[in-house]
């Protein structure tokens, strides 16, 4: 299957005076899987709908290779049916009055693929999603997971220029979802199609994507690989959204290669790993990944160890979770056993600490 790069240049979408999408630019390499990630109302779905042609941007350019979908200033606004895309919707949107076969065949017919060619294509695509032999079923006769597979088959069947996915896993229950995640990525890789995926679930985005575009309030905050987004969030919002659970305040006192000394509020100095070039005396926010914080019982470690006082504890089955108070701020930490003292020593490994410029 041919794969194309998707280029989005400076697109904006205003509803009345409100900017749902604000000057977003990004490029998806051929065959890549890119996620648009953000909380509800961040503009990710509007961006996807602009690519699909279901909504028209108020400014900017969208093109696939040389094929221009939108060029607002030149008055190019291709309606969705002329874009030759494939899309999977949140509700799957399988047409209830058509069989599985007809659901796939409808789009093929409109793209002038008919007769034996269409039949062969449908059979192959259904095999691809593991639903060979389901041609005559109606959507209501399928489970949620099967419906989702049909929706994907329908989207890729006509060999579209792009595959668009609008939170396709959000209607599945947790167990099926994790399986579907792997399977979906597997199919996408095999087909080799350039894909844009919308989700609000950071774990999903991290697990599946080649690139993640984190959005908030209509703006693109960071566009980077999953590791970069996770390890080097560009600001506090991204860090927060991608899984940091606490923020402490501090000031950088010295930088030595990739090691930075940070003076915490309260007077203690810790060492953090960083690949950003910091200046001295720079105020920073310190994002902490609580799953990497260790509770230490012996006194062998002294570097990066801070004292904390437990304010509440919750039993979670496999572990305990504590809310603790330190001189630099409050944190959430985990331990395997119940704490028998309300005073804890916490080891913050340099990798658990992310320094973010204080804006």
């Amino acid at each position, binding site marked *: 299957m041919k794969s194309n790069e998707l280029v989005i240049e400076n697109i904006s979408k205003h509803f009345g005076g409100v900017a749902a999408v604000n000057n977003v630019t990004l490029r998806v390499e051929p065959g890549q899987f890119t996620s648009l990630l953000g909380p509800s109302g961040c503009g990710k779905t509007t961006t996807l709908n602009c690519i699909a042609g279901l909504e028209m941007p108020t400014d900017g350019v969208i093109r696939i290779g040389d094929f221009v979908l939108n060029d607002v200033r030149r008055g*190019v606004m291709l309606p969705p049916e002329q874009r030759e895309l494939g899309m999977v919707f949140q*509700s799957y949107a399988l*047409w209830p009055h058509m069989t599985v076969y007809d659901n796939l065949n409808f789009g093929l017919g409109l793209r002038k693929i008919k007769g034996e060619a269409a039949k062969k294509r449908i059979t192959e695509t259904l095999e691809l999603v593991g639903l060979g032999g389901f041609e005559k079923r109606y959507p209501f006769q399928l489970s949620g997971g099967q419906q989702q597979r049909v929706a994907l088959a329908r989207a890729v069947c006509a060999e579209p220029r792009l595959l668009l996915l609008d939170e396709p896993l959000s209607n599945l229950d947790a167990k099926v979802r994790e399986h579907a995640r792997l399977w979906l990525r597997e199919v996408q890789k095999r087909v080799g199609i350039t894909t844009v995926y919308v989700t609000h679930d950071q774990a999903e985005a991290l697990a599946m994507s080649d690139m993640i575009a984190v959005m908030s309030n209509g703006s693109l905050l960071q566009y980077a690989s999953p590791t970069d987004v996770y390890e080097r969030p560009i600001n506090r919002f991204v860090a927060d959204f991608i899984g940091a659970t606490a923020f402490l305040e501090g000031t950088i006192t010295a930088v030595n290669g990739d090691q930075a000394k940070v003076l915490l509020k309260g007077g203690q100095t810790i060492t953090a790993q960083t690949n950003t070039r910091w200046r001295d005396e720079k105020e920073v926010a310190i994002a902490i990944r609580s799953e990497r914080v260790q509770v230490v019982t012996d006194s062998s470690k002294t570097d990066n160890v801070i004292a904390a006082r437990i304010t509440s504890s919750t039993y979670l089955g496999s572990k305990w979770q504590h809310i603790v108070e330190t001189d630099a701020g409050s944190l959430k930490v985990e331990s395997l056993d119940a704490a028998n003292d309300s005073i804890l020593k916490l080891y913050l490994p340099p990798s658990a600490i992310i320094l973010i410029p204080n804006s």
Partner: protein
Amino acid sequence: MATSSRPLTSSAPSIPIDKIVQWGIFILTILLVIFPSWPIFYQSVMDAPLYEQTRQFTLDNFSRVLSDSEFWGVLGTTVVYALFTTIISLATGAALALLIIRTDMPARGYFSLLINIPFYVSPLILAFGWSVIFGPQGFFTILIRNIGLPTWDLYTLGGLIAVTAMYYMPYTYLYCTASLSLSDSQLEDAARIAGANPLSVLFNVTVPLMRPAITYSALLTLVSSIEILSIPLVLGTPANLNVLATYLYKIGIVGVKTDYGSIAVVSIFIVLLVTALVALQNILMSQEKRFVTVSGKATRPRQLLLGVWKWPIFTVAATAVFIIIVLPLFGILLQAITPFVSPFINPLTILTTENFDIIFRTEPYRLSVINSVMIAVVGGAVGVVFMAVVAVVAYRSSLPTRGALRYVALYPRAFPGLIVGIGFLWAFLLVPGFGSIRNTLFALTLAFIMRHLPLGFSSISPSVLRISEELDRAARVAGANWLGVIRHILIPILRPALLSAYIILAITFLKEYSVALFLFAPGSQVIGTTMIELWRQGSSGPIAALATIQMVIIFALIAISRWVLGVKLNEVE
């Protein structure tokens, strides 16, 4: 980059056929609504009939009508009539809904079936039925008089109110039933836990929750009883008792010298009154949202046990339904198959087909049956297609004025049938090119469709809204244009709803008479206009035969739709 050099090649300017269709439907709907309205407003400020060459602007028509004491008298009667009709039909409808949905009264299913009958029967027929049974020479009246008990006079304001209230009672019953079966029984359980006894729950929780349904039915009944012509015409005219609708009929059709100015002014007056009430209905309904308790899950409501009162209540309810609905229809049937109805003669000994023979032998009468069926079957089909397209454009298009289209489609609600008829008649006379179709079935069909556009529109649009918009979007992305989405996705999914709307529209067209009264001409008469003509001649036998024929056709339609097409008619007007 290659992009900037060739952006325009990828979108050759295609003919926006979807835009043409959408604007076309919008303009067509507006024209259909304006066509019969403007002559009325225009005529009201002209000193001579519109067809005369010399006419001038005047406000005399208004001052003449407003200084006429008869007009004010009629208005007073109408207010009393509409208010009491509404109160009585609300009380009986709500009570029956409570009894049937929430208690263990016996034979609830049969009650429900009988109460819905008036939906399918023309009010004209019910009025004749009541006069056959309860009129001064009625079957039941004579029976009671003979026993020596005091009797009643049906041809009074009280009689009018009683019959009209019973005709509209099913509306309240229907809306209250829907509200009762949807409300969450946990609300009642919570009241029981809080210490309320079953009766207190009923009056403090259940009944207040019916408020939106009652408000809605109240205004619907109020509006309908201002509009209705048939019952006041049949039962009020003998006693010279007039409401606005019969007054309009009198000065428009029966009067010696037709006063066009007055007709226009009275029509405008009624339209404004109804518009105000419909607007009030919308305002009140939007405030009643707080009572909506639909939780999505179907909880089976607990039944209130009537205990020792079970059989007494059943007897009262059964007698009422028997007298109100069964007896009048039975009277019509009896009248149709006998030369006269009397409690002293066994009807089986005087059976005759004479009444039916008259209908089938007399060409104009026979033609009216054929015409009615034609309009119902063909006109109903045309109407439902048009209304479906209007609903789809109003809710599933990019038309910038689609919001306005929703109002336009519902606006004929404010035009009583009689006035729609007057408006179309005048418009056909005045607009060049339409004169030739004035006396055709096409003219009647057009008027029927305009008058019942709100009915079709509001019965189809909920089904349109229930279809997830993602289905449209998926089809667009798959390569279908707007018209393709309608043809391949929306229409097939809507098919059951459209069939049910078609049956409802066909039944409504069969029952319709008021629109046709001004508009029909020899050759385009329908069952309703023939019945009124026969009534003016005093031929009660053939009326009953015609009524029976109409009921048989309607019940055949319902039977076909239910058992052959599998349509459930749950949204009747």
